[in-house]
């Protein structure tokens, strides 16, 4: 009887964790899913977002300002990385991309250790979001509901951008048929540059939002990176809706797995990945 009362809270826990995963994976969906760049530095970009936001908070004390500035910084860095390194390596396929982004992640992680130290940082939540709201007879932290809100806005932004605007049509066309779009007069390398920038910008947002929820420390990017790839692949490469579905699925799996079968909760996510790849290699909502 007791767990019936627990059920809504547990579902919400899973949902919020899934939303954080989606927030993180949304950028990777653009970069890996659409552009086909095996970006192992995505976790490092996320980490940078969290650290930038920490510094902006220390200097100005403005959370909302950090939500604007930190992702822009990360996005800018992403643009530089694409222009200087990735563009040159892109035609050689996945393995060089992997090693390159691995190297960049190594460098960024150590730079963070030098500048901010190795100790986990405590990031303050603004007073507006630090309370809790009463919910179905219990109370729930406001910040987690805020995460839900941000994640849904990002989803809506990406969905509308990709499917309802002219820019979105051009981007999707450029991903599908590069040469044809270039022949029509569009500057395809710039489209890819901006797409990579937006993906990194999204990782930065995830860093600002996720920093206080998960812990801000130098290993935060590396530890969650694999989960992000799982989300993107299970959802289907390049599918925003798929990533959302997969993120929620994995969030709930984690939430209930820890509750009911703690011994096997470590397995669930990868069992799901293996099952999807064996039965439906294009992902849940992916196109063949």
């Amino acid at each position: 009887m007791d767990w019936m009362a627990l059920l809504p809270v547990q579902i919400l826990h899973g949902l919020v964790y899934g939303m954080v995963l989606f927030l993180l994976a949304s950028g990777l969906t653009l970069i890996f899913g659409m552009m086909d760049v095996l970006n192992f530095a995505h976790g490092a970009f996320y980490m940078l977002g969290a650290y930038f936001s920490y510094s902006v908070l220390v200097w100005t004390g403005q959370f909302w300002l950090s939500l604007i500035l930190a992702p822009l910084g990360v996005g800018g860095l992403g643009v530089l990385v694409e222009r200087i390194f990735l563009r040159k390596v892109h035609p050689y396929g996945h393995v060089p991309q992997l090693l390159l982004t691995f190297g960049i992640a190594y460098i960024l992680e150590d730079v963070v250790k030098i500048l901010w130290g190795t100790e986990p940082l405590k990031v303050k939540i603004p007073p507006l979001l630090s309370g809790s709201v009463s919910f179905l007879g219990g109370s729930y932290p406001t910040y987690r509901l805020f995460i839900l809100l941000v994640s849904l806005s990002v989803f809506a932004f990406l969905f509308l951008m990709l499917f309802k605007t002219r820019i979105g049509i051009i981007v999707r066309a450029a991903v599908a048929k590069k040469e044809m779009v270039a022949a029509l007069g569009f500057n395809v390398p710039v489209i890819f540059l901006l797409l990579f920038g937006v993906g990194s910008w999204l990782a930065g947002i995830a860093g600002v939002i996720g920093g206080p929820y998960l812990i801000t420390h130098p290993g935060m990017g590396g530890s969650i990176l694999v989960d992000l790839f799982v989300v993107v692949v299970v959802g289907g490469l390049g599918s925003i809706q798929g990533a959302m579905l997969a993120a929620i699925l994995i969030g709930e799996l984690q939430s209930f797995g820890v509750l009911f079968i703690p011994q096997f909760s470590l397995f669930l996510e990868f069992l799901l990945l293996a099952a999807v790849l064996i039965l439906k290699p294009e992902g849940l909502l992916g196109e063949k």
Partner: protein
Amino acid sequence: MGSSRVWNWLLLSALLVLLAFLPKLLSEFRLNLVITMLIYSLVAIGFNILLGQGGLLSFGHAAYFGIGAYSAMLVFKHFGFSLLPGILAGGICGALLGILFGIFLARLRGLPFALLSLAFNALVYAAAEKWRPLTGGEDGLAVRRPHLSIPGFGSINMFSTVNFYYFVLVIVALCVLYCWFFTKTPLGRLDTCMRENEERTGFIGYNTYATKLLVYVIAAFFCAIAGALSSSFQEFVSTAIINLDKSAEILILTFVGGRGIFWGPILGASFLTYLNDALSSLTQYWAIIQGAIFVVLVMYAPDGLAGLIVRTKNWLFDRVPIKKG
């Protein structure tokens, strides 16, 4: 053509002579580093059967390195195996696991192949982490290295680093030799053929599924042999040997060495093992330097160190047509 062949044999013999006399030249402490290089060379060579020769990107080879390492330790501990049968048992367990996973993997190629192998690796890791009574979890398992007993000859003390070095050298050399001949066998050629175009290979009439499965199992076997050597060298094994970082490391060794040339992975494994050792004793922030090296290599030597050497050789010694002035 003829003279370059002679040169190759001369270089190879010089290397073998050097390796044979290495214990006389190096301290025991340095010899440990060479043993690590040898073991990782074998991993990378085995892995390159998939990556370079077959064009198959696997994210999950730490699973085989790990299962070889654990199996060897467990048969030493529970069944009192001597060294060589223990190493072989490690390899066979790796091959069996390779069959199990290969059944699913052999249908795939490209990213789905890479990601499914990653999922399998993560499952093996989770199993090792949770099955504590058997594996000791992250605390690991420490077992002393047994002696090498040869029937009709007696047993050789393997606690001596020099003796163990020769043992590893012989095993690794035999395995690498096999891998070299494998590239010349019809099966090895078929592996390369499928890298170029799997669909057409099927149309010619070859069974691509069975070929890929077989190649995958062979690669798994050699990785597991190396794993077994590694754990009996360390006399310790923990789940760190199976995690995804290890899989990435194996991939990086192979790529940095050069996947397109047979001896490339050996070069990569030796270079990076040495670099790791040198940098970690030099500075705390060795990852920055290592990261920078990766970036520079990918940008300027996309075919790895071996590719760089071959290109330099050609640049120096190629016959250039003389222009009539």
